[in-house]
């Protein structure tokens, strides 16, 4: 089942790569896609509990999240440029420190998205994930923002909304405690 989906996805990619629609190249593509799907099918979809409709909905929500993330990335770049060009003020603005951050997200993929989003947003870089603890390096106290507080951060809530709807009550719990 998932191997078929992988095959279709890969075949779309193949057509994009190849740009040739004669029978010979398309059949070569089919063979290549079958080989790669056989090798990587289990690799790409590790969590088989959710079905395809859910995946599509997740993809749609993820695209909307990307738009929000792009704004954050641009902000992050202006932040870096501002720091880099700030002359003597540079040393005053910097206050690098490392803090720990416990996430409520469960799945590997959502942790991956969260970690890379943290890396791309202003002032913070994920160092490593250990269980459900993220080690984060922040460039200044202010940049750490709401990640440094005990409550659930905005980014985490957004990622949770994309991938872990069933987990939401848990998220609300943590909110109430905070």
């Amino acid at each position: 089942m998932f191997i078929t989906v992988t095959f279709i996805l890969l075949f779309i990619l193949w057509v994009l790569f190849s740009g040739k629609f004669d029978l010979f190249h398309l059949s070569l593509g089919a063979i290549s896609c079958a080989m790669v799907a056989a090798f990587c099918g289990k690799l790409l979809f590790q969590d088989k509990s959710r079905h395809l409709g859910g995946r599509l909905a997740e993809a749609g929500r993820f695209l909307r999240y990307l738009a929000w993330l792009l704004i954050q990335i641009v902000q992050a770049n202006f932040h870096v440029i501002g720091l880099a060009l700030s002359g003597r003020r540079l040393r005053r603005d910097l206050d690098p420190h490392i803090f720990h951050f416990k996430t409520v997200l469960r799945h590997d993929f959502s942790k991956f998205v969260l970690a890379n989003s943290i890396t791309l947003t202003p002032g913070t870089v994920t160092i490593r994930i250990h269980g459900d603890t993220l080690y984060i390096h922040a460039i200044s106290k202010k940049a750490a923002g709401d990640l440094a507080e005990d409550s659930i951060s905005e980014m985490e809530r957004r990622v949770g909304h994309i991938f872990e709807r069933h987990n939401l009550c848990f998220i609300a719990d943590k909110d109430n405690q905070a």
Partner: protein
Amino acid sequence: MKKTALLIIAVLGILLLRAAEDLPFWGDPQSPASVHLSDYYLEESYEETSVPNIVTSVLADYRGYDTMFETVVIFCAGITVLIVLRRTHRRRAKVISPRPERPGADIILQTAARLLVPMMQLFALYVVAHGHHSPGGGFQGGVILGSSLILLALSYDIQMALHRFKEKLVLLFSAGGVLLYAAIGLACLFLGRNFLAYGAWAALLGISEPEAHSHGMLGVEIGVAITVLCIMFSLYIDLASGGDLDEGL
């Protein structure tokens, strides 16, 4: 020591630059290489092989012999590293210190690898299959395929990559790629032509002779890609684990 090296390099560089003055200009139409040889390839190669990319047709057809032994060189290099480094359980002594225990699995790397590896492999197969039309071919495609396996071994560990692609298979395939190349050439010999004269396949497959050349080149490049893939991967696993194939970088 550093200064001596700098001196040697400077002297050598000046000598090479002096020597380069005597070479024909870049793209000089009067130079010996381009008086008759280049013209012939430029004008005739498409009619003879029906491959638009002249580089590929020269590499895999006109100079097929050369390319075959280049593949053999790669194969030999891989085997040599294997002989020097690979330790069987009979003679095992830890040279490389074991990887330090790290808290937590590397979820970020592993997920990125899961997303990128299928794409890389498909791209590599595309490069192999479209060597006739775009820059590419067996060597490049093999390198990308090999590095996709290396990415797996880097982000998980060598055991996981080896579980998907057993060491025995790696070695068998690395020899198999060279043999595939040679077999395509030998078959031409049996069909009554010269070694690696792909035109011999035309009658057998029922296609025109230029097309036979084109398909022959594709087969040869698949052979090259298999060898390069296996040797890349085998070099990595032997070098990264010091011959023990246990954990790697």
